[in-house]
């Protein structure tokens, strides 16, 4: 990565993306551009296609038709694109028998970081995820919340330009939830683009921009306040219900 690289005009772009599995179409022609340096929320009920979209963005699967590009023009399958993405899955996908530092080291090395900058970066990340005092503890000995923080650490250790978080606060207590959001806001301030999938309305309030997705299609797109006024609800939850099910169901 060269420091002189021009800032791309977007960090993520989906252009008429369709993804089918046999007869079932999970994503039905989604177009979307995320300019970067913002927290972008992908809000939708379970099975709406959020994870499928993430899997296409991370280059795990390719779209049936349409194009996904990253950082102003990179193919998600390219090494260059992959090295600029940080991915925090929903499950605790870290190595339980390794310590916090060993996990961070492993993911840093996998992303091709040099040893000296990695060492410095690990110290920074340990401060961010507030696990500096437990750095040598094996994950199996830590609480669920701490492991989740370590998971976040492994996703951002290589300074990704785009951070993808799949339901990052699912099953997390309110105190940790606030901490995670503070961290994300700080990272965003430093220039990282963040994409969050969630089915919690309360999460969506904290995003700069939210997309409502249902059955593989985008049904609303805009800042939370704008969506509330557009769909006439008292809050984002009602706006979401109106947008996804129509006004009658909101009245119920």
């Amino acid at each position, binding site marked *: 990565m060269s420091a002189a690289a021009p800032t791309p005009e977007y960090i993520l772009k989906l252009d008429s993306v369709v993804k089918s599995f046999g007869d079932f179409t999970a994503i039905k022609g989604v177009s979307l551009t995320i300019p970067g340096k913002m927290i972008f929320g992908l809000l939708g009920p379970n099975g709406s296609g959020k994870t499928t979209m993430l899997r296409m963005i*991370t*280059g*795990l*699967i390719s779209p049936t038709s349409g194009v996904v590009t990253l950082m102003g023009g990179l193919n998600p399958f390219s*090494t260059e694109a*992959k*090295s600029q*993405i940080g*991915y925090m*899955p929903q*499950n*605790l*996908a*870290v*190595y*339980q028998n390794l310590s916090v530092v060993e996990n961070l080291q492993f*993911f840093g090395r*996998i*992303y*091709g970081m040099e040893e000296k900058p990695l060492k410095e970066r690990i110290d920074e990340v340990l401060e961010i995820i507030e696990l500096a005092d437990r750095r040598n503890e094996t994950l199996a000995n830590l609480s669920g919340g701490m492991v989740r923080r370590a998971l976040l650490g*492994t996703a951002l250790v290589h300074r990704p330009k785009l951070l993808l978080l799949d339901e990052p606060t699912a099953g997390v207590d309110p105190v940790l939830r606030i901490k995670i959001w503070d961290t994300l806001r700080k990272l965003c301030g430093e220039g990282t683009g963040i994409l969050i999938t969630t089915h919690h309305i309360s999460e969506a309030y904290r995003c700069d921009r939210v997309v409502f997705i249902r059955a593989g299609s985008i049904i609303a797109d805009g800042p939370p306040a704008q969506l509330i006024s557009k769909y006439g609800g008292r809050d984002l939850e009602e706006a979401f219900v109106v947008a996804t099910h129509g006004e009658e169901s909101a009245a119920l």
Partner: protein
Amino acid sequence: MRSIWVAARVIREISRDRRTLAFFFLAPIIIMTLVYYAIKDDQIAKIGVVTRGAARFFEMEFLNTLENDKDVRIVNLSISDEETDPQTLNRMIRKELAAGRVDGVLYMSEQMLNERFAGNEGTLHLYVEGSKPIVTSAVFGAIADAMDELAASLPVVIDSSCSSLCAESVNNKPMELKKHYLYGDDDYRTVDFFLPVLPAFFVFFFTFILSTITFQRERLRGTLERLLVAPVGFYQVIAGYVMGFFIFASLQSIIVVVYILKLIQFQFTWRQTMAFAVVILLTMLVALNLGLLASFLAHNEFQALQFIPLVILPQIFLADIIWDINGFPMFFQIISKLFPLTHANAAARDIMIRGNPLSNSWMELLILAGFIAIVFTVMSLVAHKKDKSI
């Protein structure tokens, strides 16, 4: 009543997992079949008889006696009747044994009759292949029975100094049997036959289990997906796994091999040990790739666990570890060729018991390498299908 609801739920859940059901009901049938064929018959010994000079007159009678023994199969040797030089015959008999066409060859020379006529015991020569103790003892058993009858039927010359009582005693005098071993000797034990194949078996067994379970965990926990999201190729992950396991499997091989060589108390050359290590290494690589394949085929840890007996048990019976595959019906003999351990064992015995160089087992090594290539390819295809298009 609540227990019944629990039972109903258990029954329903298990009956929906077809693979588990098949395993549960079919596995015992398959294993019982294998046990049946493994211990059904006594070991069949392939025996050839070479007679020269006047001893030829007794060949038919001897063969008839042998043929009545149901554990013996008479083999016609490709040794010319014209050949009478004892040295050449000795060489030709050994060649037949080395080629595996026959397990034992009885050689009756004219000399034997002359000795007998002179009132001595007379020496019969029995050549055995020797590397398979069970077969060797079957040969000894069959020959010993036939010899008693042969001794009684041989003519004796009675001169004036010999009474009829004396003639009787000469007739009943057992002949001397001189044993010639192609491999091993009288001290060679059954255990010496089994020990050389144990390292290959253990390395295969434990590498398979370790790789199946570890990789299954990597998949289920989601860390494999994270690696694939990172700028790491699928083959780099696999190569990493191979290298990681290699360290442990190598250490295990060294421990097992060193320990077994101590147990056998044979003298092994460095060359033999290194050749043996090559066989073990290839075996480990087959097991590793099979383990990865099993972990991709399994939907959960329970199914992954089922692969262990499925892959290991048939090989215990059919891979020439304890039971000679020649005692099984042709169908199983063909199946046995599809098992990597069959070939690993053949190579291990050739190197350790027969002392042949590694190059002698080139076919077995090639087959093992072929196994690695095929299993790796299938594993890659299955992995791509499972993890790239869900």
